[in-house]
């Protein structure tokens, strides 16, 4: 007997949702037949505000685009401005940027561990990984002075040099984390519940992934080797030795495996960066911010953030304000069209797990 479809609202206030957004579900029994996302609960209109700020003031807005990983956004904006102006960055600054980006990647993946685990009822893993994430935030605090919004990578280089003995503390934290990763894996990936609730759920196949513009770990989970750090290298990634984890399957399980392996690769990159860090200046001075004008033109910079491609399109009209600073986030693609499609036929209980595995980040969609 065919059951009657009912409408179910998930969010904006819902503990399983990855941020402040709403999904309207049409369900028959436990199966979803239609999903409509509704966003805009976090729309602050950064891009309008950036048009009223000068180039350096606008930069403090940029890191607030995506809360779990602010650093890639800062870096992308700074690099877009540098491309636009033709400003060069010292080598040491590039290495420091990569160090911060990879530490941010690890901290964001650890937060993902917590979210993905909690969405399936595994609360212990979140207690561990979010607790361990504090050690990375401590490093950030020492380097940049802040826990979450660092405002560290700015046009021209980075804001501060490393404090004395910082390398040692980074390496110590990395050693500690590497040991902990084995425990996380045993807890999460050997767990029968986790396997059962992720394998074969929310499958994206290769053709669809390209057609719908999937990026980041979901794309690598479909067996396509694509990473901007390799394809369109920025900063010093072309000189570093690391691998891109790729898994077949396209389900939540494959995406989780990709993310699991990425933490190890990030630790590897951090160690190399510390080892090969050159000396010299960390900052090419920019002019007085009130008088800093950039010639007419436009630039587009892309970065591989944790959830996928982040891009910044920056336009200057020759004044000291950006004419347009438009950001493209991974969640922008994953969180609306793809999510609506992938939820069709899924189980109501899997909604938050699917959202977590796609890396849906509402502040990035809404800006």
């Amino acid at each position, binding site marked *: 007997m065919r059951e009657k479809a009912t409408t179910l609202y998930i969010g*904006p*206030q*819902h*503990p399983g949702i990855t*941020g*402040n957004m709403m999904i309207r579900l049409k369900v028959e029994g436990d199966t979803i037949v239609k999903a409509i996302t509704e966003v*805009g*609960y*976090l*729309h*602050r*209109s950064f891009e*309008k*505000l950036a048009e*009223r700020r000068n180039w350096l003031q606008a930069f*403090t*807005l940029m890191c*607030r685009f995506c*809360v*779990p990983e602010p650093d890639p956004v800062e870096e992308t904006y700074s690099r877009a401005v540098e491309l636009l102006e033709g400003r060069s960055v010292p080598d040491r600054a590039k290495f420091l940027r990569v160090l911060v980006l990879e530490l941010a990647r690890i901290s964001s993946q650890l*937060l993902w561990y*917590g979210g993905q685990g909690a969405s399936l009822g595994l609360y212990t893993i*979140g*207690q*561990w990984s*979010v*607790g361990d*994430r*504090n050690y990375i*935030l401590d490093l950030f605090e020492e380097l940049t002075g802040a*826990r*979450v*919004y660092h405002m560290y990578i700015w046009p021209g280089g980075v804001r501060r040099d490393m404090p004395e003995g910082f390398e040692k503390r980074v390496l110590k934290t990395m050693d500690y984390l590497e040991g902990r990763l084995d425990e996380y894996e045993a807890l999460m990936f050997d767990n029968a519940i986790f396997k059962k609730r992720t394998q074969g759920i929310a499958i994206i196949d290769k053709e669809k992934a390209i057609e719908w513009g999937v990026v980041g770990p979901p794309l690598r989970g479909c067996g396509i080797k694509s990473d901007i750090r390799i394809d369109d290298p920025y900063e010093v990634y072309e000189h570093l030795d690391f691998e891109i984890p790729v898994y077949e399957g396209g389900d939540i399980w494959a995406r989780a495996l990709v993310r699991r392996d990425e933490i190890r690769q990030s630790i590897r990159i951090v160690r190399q960066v510390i080892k090969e860090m050159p000396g010299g200046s960390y900052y090419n001075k920019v002019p007085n911010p009130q008088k800093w004008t950039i010639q007419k033109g436009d630039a587009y910079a892309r970065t591989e953030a944790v959830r996928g491609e982040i891009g910044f399109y920056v336009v200057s009209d020759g004044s000291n304000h950006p004419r347009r600073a438009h950001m493209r986030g991974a969640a922008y693609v994953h969180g609306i069209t793809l999510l609506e499609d992938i939820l069709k036929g899924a189980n109501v209980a899997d909604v938050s797990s699917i959202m977590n595995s796609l890396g849906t980040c509402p*502040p990035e969609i809404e800006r």
Partner: protein
Amino acid sequence: MINDKNSQKIVDHIHNFARKHSLWVLAYGTGCGAIEIPPTMTSRYDAERLGVRGAATPRQADLLLITGYLTTKTLKRVIRVYEQMQDPKYVIGFGSCTINGGMYYDSYNTINALDRYLPVDVYINGCMPRPEAVIAGFTKLQELITAGKADGAAKYKEKLEWYRKNQKNVIPNWTMPEYNW
């Protein structure tokens, strides 16, 4: 109800003591500040030792954390959520943007002062506040509860018309039911 004034005082004291040690926070991340809530709740800072923990639905929650800026679209939902919560209920404004708009003071979509729309018991400033600051905010709220000064909900009932006027000023299409005590 106890008619004797002194006995009432003792009963209130016991009530407040109990309320203070079981603050259930509504799991509603309204803004960026929500990112510091997991560290606050987990192993290092462990807010649960103060009796603070998450609640899934408004009806079971005592404390509404407004974690940062509120857009008018969210404000509408937050008012709905706040009015669904049962007495006693408290509100903490979290971050500079709830106090005076913070860095979004000129945005067309965010409100600038939270206490015009909801009764705020404690403000925590910073962008964003560290977990220590959040815990300091919780303990401050507990102090206020012990002293019987966390009376935001009573103020809201009393001055409902004023709050309603402000709310309707910024929310263009008021489709919500009028408040049902």
